């Protein structure tokens, strides 16, 4: 089996193009966060992690986020807010 089709070698980050947004578009309300990990599980780019019982968003998420909004939907505590990044920035899909 040739290397190139192998899924386990697939590097998601090299397969997306993101124009970094100049402002934040995801916000976490730490007071509301219960550390349930829903965001950590759902994020297709692994941009959330749990630190000391609270969700933490990767500091460079603006370079990597694909704007799916999964974390926003998955958070049943309404601790995560998601709005679109500024017009003309963010994920660029060429072959979708």
């Amino acid at each position, binding site marked *: *089996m*040739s290397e*190139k*089709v*192998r*899924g*386990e070698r*697939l590097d*998601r980050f090299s*397969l*997306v193009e993101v124009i970094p947004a100049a402002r934040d578009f995801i916000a976490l309300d730490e007071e509301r966060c219960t550390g*349930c*990990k*829903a965001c950590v*599980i*759902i*994020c*297709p*780019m*692994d941009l959330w992690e749990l630190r000391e019982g609270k969700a933490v968003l990767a500091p460079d998420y603006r370079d990597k986020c*694909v*704007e*799916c*909004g*999964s974390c*926003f*939907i*998955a958070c*049943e505590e*309404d601790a995560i807010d*998601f*709005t*679109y990044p*500024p*017009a*003309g920035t*963010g*994920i*660029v*899909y*060429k*072959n*979708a």
Partner: protein
Amino acid sequence: MGDYDLIVVGAGPGGSTAAMTAAKAGMKTLLLERSRYPGEKNASGCALSSKAWRDFSCLDDMELPSMRMGRYCIAHFLSPPPQMEERFSFGSGTSQRISYPEGRDFFTVSVLRRELDQFLADKAVEAGAELELTSLVTGLVRQAGEIKGVRLEGGEEFRAPVVIGADGVLSTTARLAGLRDKWRPDQVVSACVVDYSAPRERLDAVIHEASFQAYFSPGIGGNFLIALAEGLHLGGPGVTNSLVSRVIRRRKKPARELLDTLLAPPTRRLLEACDAAPREWQVHLLPWMDTMPTDIFAGGLILVGDAAGLPEPLYAEGVWQAMYSGRLASQVALEAVEEGDTSASSLQRYLHRLKESPVGQEFIAGRELRRLFEMAGDPKLFGDLTEMIVDLMVNMFMTAQEPKAETIARAFPIVAKNLPVLLRMAGIYMPAMLKIWREKLRRQVASIKGLESASGEIKGGEAGP
């Protein structure tokens, strides 16, 4: 600051169809899109159903480089992980019972959303709509409780008596209007896709017109494969396992699950045969409802497509639904503007018409249809079902291993052994069919009543209810 008859937020298939319809009818229409070009942000919906050609003549001249015809569908049923080898597959061409000619000719046409969305936006512009790109709506203009326009991030305002929200699953307009903050986790699917490049000759030789295929495996649900002219999409996990509420409950990352199951030997062999190489990673949320949402309009606002939660309850197909609801929304907007009443009670006719339309009909027995698909997430049931079909096929038709009389007679014990599985299937199918028949009957009675009242009106008699 500008004044329009209609503002459409989002230049996807729903928004562009709405803008095209309105502009054609003479409305001064503004179409706003947050990205740099239509289709830049859309990562799903590249298999367009033949229904779109039935309903939209604007597609008649559509010839786009990425298009591949889908005249044959294949469902592959694999053994459970980790083996995931092919157990049986079912392939089929179109049925001659389908009620319209395009449906008898093909199932779907695969097309890149980047091309389809641009094509439809061009149609809207040709019809006279103004398209404004890189325009992010962040506020609504209100007047006497009704929505009367939008505000862009830069502060610029545009006014119109009706705004159509075609801004997708995370609809900003729905949120700003207070219709909802967001869909619930059990109403949304998180679909991941690996896009591969592949030479056209290889795809022509290996896949040809079998451009839509699904790979089912007990406990995994169905990964799907959509072949384009020069590339293919492998997506998953199946809607059951990518339903956000289910992901949280199972605590299994959907992206990881897709990447793990992409390695199923049959898909590997196919990718190899097509000389495919990964090109793009795409993720998108899809609304997946079992009943048609009703909170899809407000005074001066109509929601269409994913913003209205209209993808159908079996596979979450949504592009045709977006186009259909987009056109209907513009027709309603035109009537309301002409009547000078764009209040919520005036725009409510959109909901009624949508419910009675083919888009609404897709939700008949939606709960049962969704349960049918959820079965694929039950490893035991789905595994038993797969093996029962294999047993029946092999012993009744494909046997050369033992005397035919011996194997054919096994049909009865096979069915008897699987009676519990079949009963569970029937437990889903039967109520679904009863609901569908009852609804068909209701519609027929309603249409007869409608005819009576219509003829009553013509005769000058009293109109029925």
